[in-house]
């Protein structure tokens, strides 16, 4: 057991930046999960599988273009859309018939759905892992007070706030966002003012799954793209949604910050036990705020 006694300020700053870029991915994935959970009341276990699909599709599209810069941008646009299309088919074909069922049924159903997607991914891409290089201008590192900081992480730090702003705009300024917020609380009454809630749900589901695909696309150049990345992310995403407050997008942001930062700072403080830190943070939050940090829509 070895405590690193000399935690310098610049090392800390570096880890904070790394943690924030991890936060970006976690936030994008968890906000999508939270949106679906809040409005449709579906605990979508397959959300992680859609994230994995997004990563694999990103790999394929980028590779079609020789992993060039153009290929990367194209993949970043196409992959989340492919995932959104997949989720749209699943929603209209399957999910939309199940909204009235109890949660346990929905949970089992989405779990089954996650297994099906997992196997489809295995069929299409095989069980080997893939890797994708970031486009040239995002490769390498900046030097921040003497410590190297990967350019790609900086790119993530730009994307994160953009997605957050986009989600804020969507939920607060657009009609579909306002309707979704109303439906989250009282779907029956939304129907009684003449809105076909079924299509609102389809839209929200697709947007939520798009975010899973986007998260997968953005994470692709930073890690091995492999079977199993679905399970890892879904557990983290659910924990984030739970500590943030079910269905609250800003709660997802807060939860992702806590998870991302405790993880990266934990690595600095006590590398061998780093994995424990975010979970301790989750337990601590739940001890004091079992209903989550921000207001849940449930």
């Amino acid at each position, binding site marked *: 057991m070895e405590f690193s006694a000399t935690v310098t300020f610049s090392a800390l700053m570096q880890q904070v930046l790394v943690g924030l870029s991890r936060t970006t991915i976690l936030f994008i994935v968890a906000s999508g999960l939270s949106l679906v959970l809040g409005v449709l009341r579906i605990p979508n276990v397959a959300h992680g599988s859609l994230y994995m699909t997004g990563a694999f599709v990103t790999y394929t599209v980028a590779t079609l273009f020789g992993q060039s810069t153009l290929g990367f941008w194209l993949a970043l646009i196409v992959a989340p859309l492919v995932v959104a299309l997949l989720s749209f088919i699943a929603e209209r074909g399957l999910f939309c018939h199940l909204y009235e069922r109890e949660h346990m049924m929905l949970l089992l159903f989405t779990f089954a759905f996650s297994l099906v997607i997992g196997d489809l991914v295995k069929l299409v891409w095989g069980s080997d892992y893939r890797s994708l290089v970031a486009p040239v201008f995002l490769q390498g590192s900046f030097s921040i007070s003497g410590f190297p900081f990967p350019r790609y992480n900086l790119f993530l730090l730009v994307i994160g706030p953009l997605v957050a702003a986009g989600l804020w705009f969507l939920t607060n300024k657009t*009609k579909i966002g306002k309707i979704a917020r109303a439906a989250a609380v*009282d779907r029956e009454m939304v*129907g*009684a*003012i003449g*809105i*076909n809630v079924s299509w609102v749900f389809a839209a929200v589901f697709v947007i939520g799954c798009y975010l899973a695909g986007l998260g997968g696309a953005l994470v692709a150049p930073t890690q091995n793209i492999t079977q199993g990345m679905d399970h890892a992310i879904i557990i983290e995403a659910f924990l984030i949604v739970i500590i943030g407050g079910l269905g609250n997008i800003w709660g997802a942001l807060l939860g992702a910050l806590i998870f991302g930062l405790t993880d990266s700072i934990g690595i600095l403080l006590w590398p061998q036990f780093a994995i424990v830190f975010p979970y301790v943070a989750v337990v601590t939050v739940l001890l004091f705020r079992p209903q989550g940090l921000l207001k849940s829509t449930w």
Partner: protein
Amino acid sequence: MLRVENIHTYYQLSHILFGVSLEVGQGEIVCLLGRNGAGKSTTMKSIMGLTPPKQGTIEFKGKVCTGHKPYLMARMGIGFVPDDRRVFADLTVGENLEISERNVHEGGWNKDRVYNFFPALRSIDARRAGFLSGGEQQMLTIARALMTNPDFILLDEPTEGLAPLIVNMLEEQIARLKESGLTVLLAEQNLEVALRLSDRGYVIDNGAIQYHGTRDDLSSNEAVRNKYLCV
């Protein structure tokens, strides 16, 4: 305009309505009187399609629409004002109205006209609906129903639990709605308000219509009032 014939409605296994029939003609205000639990709200919800009846028919504007989804009933021109108000608490007053806007046309209801109708709402446009007083919430639910530009409104106990001053104001506004050509089915426990507003009335008890008559019949028939309406 609306014809309900012999409907039977259940909540899961409990049988709530036993063959309710009623009719509302174009431009009328018809009241549905009854005690708590008599079946007023269930009748309203059955018409709206929220608790579709298992038997019987509902006909609106000459079309049979039994078992239609609530959003289709709303699109056919029925506005629904539930007794528990159910404003969209997370949305502002203005947003509540914006998402309800439907069938926009010249001379129809829009946010501005609704605010002229309930001036108190204009000043709280940006306030979250969850933070409103009971009277304000009631105005908002009626305003929300008006935003859908209905031809017919189901008003479920609009005066319940409100201060007398607000009850008077609402009463005047409901009378004005009738003047503007709207047809209303009004569920009420408050006999005086109901009789002042309506042309005809039905008395419901134990899930079945027990009496039907004009306003004058109802106000003169003490036996019916004592039997079905006194607590």
